[in-house]
């Protein structure tokens, strides 16, 4: 027997993974894969489970003070009566709209871009990052069946350092291949509210099953926020965005979602804003001081006449050493060009 044999005897009786742990890990992987695959990939990293670092939180707290002092956040983290009024006004419009047919596919066509980093993160400052444009068209039924078409465009570089690092890495293709995938339904009995994922199906939150009572809906959103990254109003604001995005929510549900957003501390009214498709809408925003990326702001732009969500945008508000750009930097956006219910997949 040699030292390797002796070494091999160490810990070889370690128990196999518990089946429940294995199932949970598998489900987490699938949820992670599906979150990256069927939802807009520019969602904040914090929602995908990246740990929040204490030091980042402390730096973000300092940054908040600096940003408040600079006037970027004139209303700070207090409730904003103007934002609440704008959101309640569009909620009133939605509540007066008739319910159309709900059978069929929720069809959304969008153009966006997301932050794509290879090795570039607060922990790995020597990588590079770019905005990667994505064109996306999706048809989803509440049963999870549907079709998704995606293609990515040429990277948009934040600055010459990122581009040079990419070239030094051999200029790898960041676009990947365009995809066109069809999906089958989820198994029967799946809770439409709980975000579960099944291989071969799309993730869909059945917003038709949501309560239209604002208090009941707020309670559900509170529960999900607590189960996700923390019961913060930013998390609640993000969930409202999740439930408006690619769901073609019924008018009364949409109204309740806007009223929940109006009740959140920290929502601010940005005002009239033109989206990247040239449409004028009303923008509200919330700033997140808990992101692992630092201080960032999310904007929702909605049509004040139709109550439809037009666009979303994520902006990084402070300088970071892993991104070759000056703040504020747009690190993700999506513009919803079509949002409708159709009987068939075209």
């Amino acid at each position: 027997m040699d030292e390797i044999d002796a070494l091999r005897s160490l810990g070889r009786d370690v128990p196999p993974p518990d089946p429940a742990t294995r199932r949970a890990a598998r489900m987490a992987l699938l949820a992670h894969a599906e979150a990256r695959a069927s939802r807009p990939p520019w969602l904040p990293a914090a929602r995908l489970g990246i740990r929040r670092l204490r030091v980042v939180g402390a730096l973000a707290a300092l940054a908040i003070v600096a940003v408040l002092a600079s006037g970027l956040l004139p209303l700070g983290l207090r409730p904003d009566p103007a934002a609440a009024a704008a959101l309640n006004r569009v909620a009133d419009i939605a509540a007066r709209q008739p319910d159309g047919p709900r059978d069929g596919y929720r069809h959304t066509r969008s153009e966006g871009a997301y932050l794509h980093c290879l090795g570039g993160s607060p922990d790995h400052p020597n990588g590079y990052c770019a905005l990667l444009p994505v064109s996306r068209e999706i048809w989803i039924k509440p049963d999870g069946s549907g079709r998704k078409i995606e293609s990515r465009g040429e990277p948009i570089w934040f600055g010459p350092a990122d581009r040079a690092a990419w070239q030094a890495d051999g200029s790898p293709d960041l676009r990947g291949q365009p995809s066109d995938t069809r999906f089958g339904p989820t198994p029967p009995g799946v809770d439409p509210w709980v975000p579960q994922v099944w291989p071969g199906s799309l993730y869909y939150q059945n917003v038709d099953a949501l309560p239209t009572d604002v208090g009941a809906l707020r309670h559900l959103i509170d529960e999900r926020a607590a189960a996700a990254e923390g019961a913060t109003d930013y998390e609640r604001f993000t969930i409202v965005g999740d439930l408006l995005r690619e769901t073609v929510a019924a008018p009364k549900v949409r109204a309740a979602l806007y009223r929940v957003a109006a009740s959140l501390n920290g929502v601010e009214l940005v005002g009239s804003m033109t989206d990247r498709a040239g449409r004028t809408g009303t923008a509200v925003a919330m700033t997140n001081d808990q992101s692992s990326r630092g201080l960032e702001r999310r904007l929702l732009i909605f049509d004040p006449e139709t109550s439809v969500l037009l666009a979303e945008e994520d902006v990084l508000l402070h300088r970071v050493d892993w991104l070759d750009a000056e703040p504020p930097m747009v690190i993700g956006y999506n513009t919803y060009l079509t949002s409708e219910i159709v009987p068939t997949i075209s």
Partner: protein
Amino acid sequence: MEARSDAQIIAASWVEPLVFAAVFDRHYDAVHRYLARRVGSDLADDLAAEAFTTAFDVRRRYDTAHPDARPWLFGIATNLLRHHRREEARRLRAYARLERPADADDGFGGIEARVDAGRAGPAIADAVTRLSAGDRDVLLLFAWVDLRYEEIAVALRIPVGTVRSRLHRARRRLRELLGDSGQYLGADTLTEALEPDG
């Protein structure tokens, strides 16, 4: 029909991400076992899950010239351990405190060998704690995962020559340490570290 290689599955997951679950199904238990031996089962539960989500995120960079994904996966798992050296040291110290019962069926064959293993186990655990992190990674991928030199090189992204030298150094150091304690009873096997790759 011939089963698809890991590389084929990973390439397919570039288009259809959920097929990556097949990689999990094949290798999760082995990755978990490796991590559990190094840092204990509780932490291994978290790290094994993190290893596969990390692997998913970087799957586009997988070199499909390697049909077997194990070196890549164990490399990711090993990388995650960098943040948990203290837990690993505690785990190794726990091994060092353990005395294997002499009558346990340890698979070494004869009673003499079993006694050797029982004696050497605690000492070798103690010796492993004294190795550098880089040498320990190479040694444990070799001894616990049975990766070949080239595979360890892929896992740790180091040249094969570095794998050889680290393994050589680690084994020599182990033997020195065990010799100091008087508990190492095996033959001189230093040359095994220099054997041709197979």
